[in-house]
């Protein structure tokens, strides 16, 4: 998919998901959406039709990956609900992304966070309201060029490649990370603990913490959203190399997923790559 987030920047975006080599079902989902609320002038007698340009509305691009929690009933349903609900909620917010001043930007961020919380509630109820029925991670980015707004729950990840350096934009919300952060475990204890990868925050689960952030991108940067099926098997250096070398988003996705499968494919793997092609 190629979209134009602004006249000067072409965003080449693509996504790919694979069941992996060990699982029977793919519980991951992703979506790439172009959001625009615009008035298109078909014909006019006005001498300078550019006066209507401001009605075009700036395009926003939405990227989402969701990883239904393994071992729980309905993981695939949870991740599908996350993706479909967010698109539904955010379609309404499309008109509010143009010309964001500080107040409107905070309002926009609140709307995004609200959409995530509403989605959580929907999945929680679908799961029987017990917090153990179904759950999913969520990593999403809304790109209103040049700014990418990020909302994150769980242990899927967002990265961006900037001047050849890969930077992780999210932090895993897992027991291991939480215990190390709290000083209760060492990094080594976290690596060896069987419960380290358990989520401490998930959509549809008992606890929800929505991490919010943003980053301003530049032409040449690459945004990557992925589930842990990728990062379990493909080290950051390799991810950086693939993203830096690829000439299009689709081939980058294919190569990253192939790397995860070659590395063992122990889990479902999903990637979304967006190249700020300039």
């Amino acid at each position: 998919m190629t979209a134009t987030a602004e006249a000067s920047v072409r965003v080449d975006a693509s996504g790919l998901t694979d069941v992996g080599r060990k699982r029977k079902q793919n519980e991951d989902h992703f979506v790439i959406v172009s959001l625009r609320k615009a008035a298109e002038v078909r014909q006019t007698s006005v001498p300078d039709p550019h006066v209507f340009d401001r009605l075009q509305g700036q395009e926003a691009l939405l990227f989402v990956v969701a990883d239904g929690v393994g071992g729980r009933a309905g993981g695939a349903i949870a991740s599908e609900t996350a993706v479909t609900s967010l698109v539904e909620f955010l379609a309404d917010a499309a008109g509010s992304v143009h010309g964001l001043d500080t107040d409107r930007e905070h309002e926009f961020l609140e709307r995004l966070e609200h959409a995530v919380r509403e989605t959580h509630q929907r999945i929680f109820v679908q799961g029987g309201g017990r917090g153990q029925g179904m759950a999913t991670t969520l990593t999403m980015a809304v790109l209103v060029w040049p700014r990418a707004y990020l909302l994150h729950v769980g242990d899927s990840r967002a990265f961006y490649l900037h001047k050849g350096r890969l930077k992780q934009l999210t932090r895993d919300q897992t027991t291991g990370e939480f215990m190390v952060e709290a000083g209760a475990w060492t990094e080594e204890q976290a690596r060896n603990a069987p419960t380290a990868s358990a989520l401490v925050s998930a959509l549809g689960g008992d606890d929800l913490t929505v991490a919010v952030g943003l980053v301003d991108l530049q032409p040449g940067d690459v945004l990557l959203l992925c589930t842990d099926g990728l990062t379990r098997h493909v080290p950051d250096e390799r991810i950086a190399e693939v993203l830096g070398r690829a000439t299009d988003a689709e081939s980058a996705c294919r190569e990253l997923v192939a790397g995860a499968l070659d590395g063992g494919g122990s889990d479902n793997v999903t990637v979304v790559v967006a190249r700020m092609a300039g």
Partner: protein
Amino acid sequence: MIQKKVCMVGVFGTGKTSLVQRFVHSMFSERYLSTVGVKIDRKPIQVDGADLTLVLWDLAGRDGHEDITASYLRGSHAILYVADGTRRETCDQLPELRALARGAAGEVPEVLALNKSDLKERWALAAADEQGLSRAFDLVRTSAKSGEGVEEVFRRIGRATLAIKEARS
């Protein structure tokens, strides 16, 4: 509810994220993870009977590779500078950071958190140095680890943002 955007500005490793963690989540971690881009947290507070929400923009610190991204600072209602009292160079860079911040955000209230006050044996500033900083900034000594000064520094910046509104109205 009144919302005020407060940008946290400083050199890498001065404890910006730790101050936010302490203030918003009552947590402290010894582990250092550098911030990428901006992390955003909200904290409702009450200052002098007025309710407001501080929207805290925790900016990636300036390091050898990259400067502060000026576009993040636009529209700020206040700037909270953070320096590390055990690393003199983090104070030496404050004038440059202030010029950058003022260039992007204009003349908005500023407070300086002189952080890591619990590390007394490693403190790198003489009394005269701190007096100099106090003349240039509204300074609060803070420790994200012990909690010293943390409530105070955010309360002070909240009060300053309200004072601006009152002065303008």
